[in-house]
């Protein structure tokens, strides 16, 4: 398990170095967390990390997690924290008293209420849900019993959200029931294994309906084998349903979901070519000599990686190529080779040259206008991988096995692209990035920036949040790190609440131009100040990096000011809270004509800006308007 991570060289030595007084402890521990760690090493690293405070140091973010469980889960805490650290996420993890998950949520005096968790994880065994169902239960009776368990869970989910505004993560049920009838179990509604399977199905439906996230350990146990996840001795000895050996994987799976919810998942898959996307070296072997496609196992293995990459693209992952090759030769394979599944148009950034790969990865991130930490770099060559890890530690580089047959599995196991949403916009993202390439070409042929923007024939389609777009809006708010002055994350339910409130002004913007629909690329949430009826605060304003530099921020502000004026608002207030990623909007409000507040300084270098709407001079842009 965890084979995508490179082995640690001299773990003890590195740990000792990290703990020396003068060293940058946190950075060194975070670097160590990038390695494959065993059960004991995980505990040691966690102890070295120590308690995390409410303040997160530069380059790290923090989160308070409460685990409510019906079995012992204390042994999972070190792995959860180490997996968080792997993502520069410092997690304060609390475990509720054994078996008291209901009381913790329902009683106002409970420890949980003092903790105010941002994330509540429900880690339950299936035993309670199925114990009362008789073996002779009819299908309808089994349904009803499972329905009651699910209803109770939904009540707990609701409670966690209402009380703490917490993100709820529900663990799927480990199916540890032994066969009773054998294969016939699946045909008996009341058979324990069948009940648990059914429970998981109903759980997924309820979670989808309620917008609750799942931690799918049932699936993981199918992947690794139940014996890897459940050790009956540990259950009998200490009521641990999840085997301590599985703790490192459990921690990583949970940290993925938390990171995805925070917008920290990877966004772009960068692929090497020779011996990665195909077998052989195109420069030496030529198009006829490379091994790709049906007919040979090796050729199909490389094709399988292409197919997986293509599927990832369909769900919104950006694809790029980074290869030491002659660019014309490399591109010709995409254009002319009959067995190629990936086409040139699937690749949003294509870099083939003889330069250092780290420099090229930087170039790819710049070209796509995404953070370099959102890249995953897949390369069969261990030396290239080591070099990239050395110079760009923020880029994820899976430890690809030597056997090409295992490439897809390795990439999939690493879970870099964990997601908490899937919207129609995601499936179009690949095309949108490719359309951006056409825009680049058009920009190069334009006389000036102004000429380019005029020639794009842009229009903005705007209006209040539309119900069909809520998931996309919540995703944009959850994932946007750059154009995000406040980096306030709002869940889908929060967003729905803003829409329902007649005092809020939520605005969405879609940008269309001659090269296509860029999709829903910006959202703004304006909230009134209860103390000052004429004042409205820009609580959240996010914009996709795909449309930076198109004057959309100007036109969006023109629209916001006009709309607010019509509501009788006279002033805007807007905070800029700096993070390591949102430097692009540091001067946004000053550029838009806001003035810096003279009041006492806010925390963490945050700045507060005001705009007197009567003083606002609308910006002239090349964007036409269409309302929704």
């Amino acid at each position, binding site marked *: 398990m965890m084979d995508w991570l490179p082995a640690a060289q001299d773990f003890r030595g590195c740990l000792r170095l990290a703990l020396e007084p003068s060293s940058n402890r946190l950075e060194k521990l975070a670097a160590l967390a990038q390695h494959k760690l065993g*059960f*004991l090493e995980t*505990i*040691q690293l966690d102890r070295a990390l120590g308690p995390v405070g409410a303040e997160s140091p530069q380059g790290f973010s923090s989160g308070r997690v409460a685990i409510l469980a019906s079995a012992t889960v*204390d*042994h999972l805490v070190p792995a959860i924290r180490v997996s968080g650290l792997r993502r520069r996420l410092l997690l304060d993890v609390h475990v509720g008293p054994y078996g008291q998950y209901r009381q913790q949520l329902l009683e106002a005096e409970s420890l949980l209420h003092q903790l105010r968790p941002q994330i509540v994880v429900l880690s339950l065994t299936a035993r309670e849900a199925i114990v009362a169902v008789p073996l002779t239960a009819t299908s309808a009776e089994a349904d009803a019993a499972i329905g009651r368990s699910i209803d109770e869970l939904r009540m707990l989910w609701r409670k966690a959200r209402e009380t703490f505004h917490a993100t709820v993560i529900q663990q799927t049920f480990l199916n540890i029931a032994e066969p009773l009838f054998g294969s016939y179990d699946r045909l008996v509604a009341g058979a324990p294994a069948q009940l648990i399977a059914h429970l998981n199905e109903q759980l997924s439906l309820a979670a989808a309906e309620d917008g609750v996230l799942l931690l799918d350990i049932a699936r993981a146990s199918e992947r690794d084998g139940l014996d890897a996840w459940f050790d009956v*001795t540990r259950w009998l*000895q200490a009521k641990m349903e999840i085997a*301590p*050996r599985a703790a490192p994987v459990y921690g990583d799976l949970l940290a993925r979901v938390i990171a995805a919810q925070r917008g920290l998942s990877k966004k772009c898959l960068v692929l090497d070519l020779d011996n990665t996307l195909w077998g052989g070296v195109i420069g030496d072997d030529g198009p006829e000599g490379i091994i790709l496609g049906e007919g040979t196992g090796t050729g199909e293995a490389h094709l399988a990686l292409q197919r997986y990459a293509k599927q990832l693209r369909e769900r919104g992952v950006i694809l790029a190529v980074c290869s030491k090759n002659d660019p014309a030769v490399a591109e010709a394979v995409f254009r002319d080779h009959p067995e190629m599944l990936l086409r040139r148009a699937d690749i949003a950034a294509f870099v083939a040259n003889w330069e250092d790969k780290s420099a090229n990865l930087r170039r790819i991130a710049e070209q796509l206008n995404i953070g370099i930490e959102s890249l995953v770099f897949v390369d069969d060559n261990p030396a290239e991988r080591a070099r990239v890890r050395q110079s760009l530690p923020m880029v994820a580089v899976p430890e690809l096995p030597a056997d090409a047959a295992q490439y897809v599995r390795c990439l999939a196991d690493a879970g870099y692209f964990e997601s908490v949403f899937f919207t129609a916009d995601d499936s179009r993202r690949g095309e949108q990035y490719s359309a951006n390439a056409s825009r680049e070409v058009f920009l190069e042929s334009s006389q000036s920036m102004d000429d380019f923007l005029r020639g794009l024939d842009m229009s903005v389609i705007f209006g209040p949040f539309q119900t069909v777009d809520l998931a996309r809006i919540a995703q944009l708010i959850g994932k946007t790190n750059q154009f995000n002055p406040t980096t306030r994350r709002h869940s889908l339910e929060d967003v729905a609440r803003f829409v329902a409130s007649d005092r809020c002004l939520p605005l969405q913007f879609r940008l269309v131009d001659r090269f296509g629909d860029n999709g829903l690329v910006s959202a703004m949430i304006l909230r009134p100040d209860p103390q000052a009826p004429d004042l409205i605060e820009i609580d959240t304003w996010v914009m996709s990096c795909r449309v930076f530099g198109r004057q959309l921020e100007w036109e969006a502000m023109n629209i916001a000011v006009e709309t607010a004026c019509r509501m009788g608002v006279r002033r805007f207030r807007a905070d800029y809270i700096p993070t390591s990623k949102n430097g692009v909007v540091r001067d946004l409000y000053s550029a838009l004509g806001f003035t810096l507040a003279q009041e006492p300084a806010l925390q963490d270098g945050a700045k507060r800006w005001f705009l007197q709407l009567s003083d606002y001079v609308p910006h002239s842009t090349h964007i036409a308007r269409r309302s929704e």
Partner: protein
Amino acid sequence: MTDQDIVNGLTRILRDLLSDDSIVLRMETKRDEVANWDSFAYVSFIVAVEIEFGVKFGVAEVESFPNVGAIARRISAILLPR
């Protein structure tokens, strides 16, 4: 591997687990003689030992090891036939 080699291995595991390099286990050491070696740490210790030595103890064994020597002898007995 002698029983003493195994005890040395157990010492190293417990030192790592409890971050305490002053620990020295002997054949006759009992759990309550070592600071912080509580029942939770004991479960973690057994897991680490099973992983490190590639052995698996039975439920009755883990509940009844009287001292470190008993653990070492059991490991030795499991490993011997190999």
